[in-house]
């Protein structure tokens, strides 16, 4: 088939500049595929930087990884793409972690409904869930990339806060939903919140000196020791969430946050490990 017409200069120029309307651009492309003469006129006119940019765009479109489910959810919630990537690498934002949270909450609820005093199990365990999640989210023992993250310029404190906020939000939402199903007074549904925040902040504060998982274990043990009297028969099962205890938790929270602020630089070095 012989070509009977050729591109006029206007069509060629607007195609090269990228300003040709889609119909014209498509017709130019169809024509140059068949017409060697117009092809030769076109090739020297195209600016190489523009070609490189188009090629890079094509590579980026094809090659960029598809966001993971967690990342997709975060992006939809308006989280920035680089922050979503950091959160996707949080060891405690995994299916296994959420399954154990479900299991613990389920057992605590069962116990609360089984006996009159069973609510104490929920009140003792729920505050420990975010503690475990936060400790796991930046410990060298659970984050395989911890060493690299430490040597990187990204602020360790910011990484910690971003991850803790995500873990805390997820855990508190789950535990909060479970707490709605507790029998008894309605204020119980939020009574565990302040202890949870105090214990989480306390773990962060202790982690400026000790390995995060060890800090969490230490505080959890202390908390269980403090709550133990509430388990005794004839005692007040709500002992740990009465106003006195709440005030104590508030004090711990304030002191712990102050400690983290003062000692924030301690996070940017490797802690408690002798490799």
């Amino acid at each position, binding site marked *: 088939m012989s070509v009977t017409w050729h591109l006029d200069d206007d069509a060629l120029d607007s195609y090269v500049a990228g300003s040709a309307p889609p119909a014209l651009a498509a017709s130019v492309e169809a024509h140059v595929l068949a017409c060697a003469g117009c092809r030769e006129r076109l090739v020297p006119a195209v600016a190489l930087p523009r070609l490189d940019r188009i090629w890079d765009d094509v590579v980026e479109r094809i*090659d*960029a990884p598809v966001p993971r489910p967690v990342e997709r959810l975060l992006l939809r919630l308006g989280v920035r*793409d680089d922050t979503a990537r950091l959160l996707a690498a949080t060891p405690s934002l995994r299916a296994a972690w959420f399954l154990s949270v479900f299991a613990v909450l389920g057992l605590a609820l069962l116990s609360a409904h089984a006996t009159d005093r069973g609510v104490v199990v929920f009140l003792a365990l729920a505050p420990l869930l975010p503690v475990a999640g936060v400790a796991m989210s930046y410990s060298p023992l659970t984050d395989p990339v911890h060493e*690299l993250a430490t*040597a990187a310029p*990204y602020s360790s404190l910011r990484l910690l806060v971003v991850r803790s906020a995500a873990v805390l939000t997820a855990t508190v939402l789950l535990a909060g939903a479970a707490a709605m199903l507790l029998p008894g007074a309605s204020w119980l549904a939020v009574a565990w919140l302040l202890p949870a925040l105090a214990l989480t902040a306390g773990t962060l504060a202790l982690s400026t000196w000790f390995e995060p998982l060890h800090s969490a274990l230490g505080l959890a043990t202390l908390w269980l020791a403090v709550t133990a009297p509430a388990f005794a028969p004839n005692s007040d099962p709500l002992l740990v969430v009465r106003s006195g205890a709440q005030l104590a938790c508030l004090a711990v929270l304030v002191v712990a946050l102050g400690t983290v602020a003062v000692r924030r630089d301690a996070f940017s*070095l490797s802690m408690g490990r002798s490799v």
Partner: protein
Amino acid sequence: MTAVRAQELVKAYGRKRALDGVTLTAGTGVTGLLGPNGAGKTTLLRAVATVLAPDEGQLRLLGMDPSDPKQRVEIRRRLGYLPQEPGFHRSFSTFEMVDYVAVLKEQTERRARHDEVRRVLELVGLQDVSSKKVRALSGGMRRRLGLAQALLGEPELLVLDEPTAGLDPEQRMRFRDLMSQAGEDRAVLLSTHQTEDVAALCSSVVVVDRGRTLFTGTVPSLVAVAAGRVWVDEVRDPSALAGWRLGSGLFHHVGNPPAGAQLVDATLEDAYLLLLGGQPAQVAA
């Protein structure tokens, strides 16, 4: 400017001193850190990578003080680090893993970051497996992935802890080539217990043992340490510091040669063994 200047560094874990006054300088080019297992190489490199603070001594990196939090961040912006056992998120793809480290290196703009990730993956020859999960990569590929993340952002100082461990000869060659290229215009500090790595690519060498520096200098000057102190004989000489049987049936000795001994040219390995005081267990027969 000297990229790494470490003076009399001490780091103790309980009663064990991993670093016991080690001194080292490294400038542009590849500096090899040579020493037996447990010599303190990893502890020293972790200090140079700003991950670990030494208990005593003075450390200057790129002219800055890593004990100052602000300067530490600035050093980290210009540093690439490959730990001895770089952990990976195994469910990430190769691309995602490097992309994650790029975010930690403050590359927030998505498009520029992706271009940089592609650049380093191509440098180490992993561009074809960029969508493969890290857990599906071979050991050699994971080492290359480790090197790729260290090269992100063209760091001025590269700290590589045993980068060639567990590589087969062909991969080792490729790695040496990459590190040698990297050392053309920046400082590369790498540890190894393979004398061949040092001979093949290092412009200078530092030998450490038990947390102390035994030698600092060029590769030829290290070899010169063993000149006239290497000989072969038809029988094993018990007076030698170290000795082993060669394939030819002769015995190769390092130490103080007896009168009339048949001296041979020294190698880097001979010099290394002499420095360490001869530990035959280090040398396979």
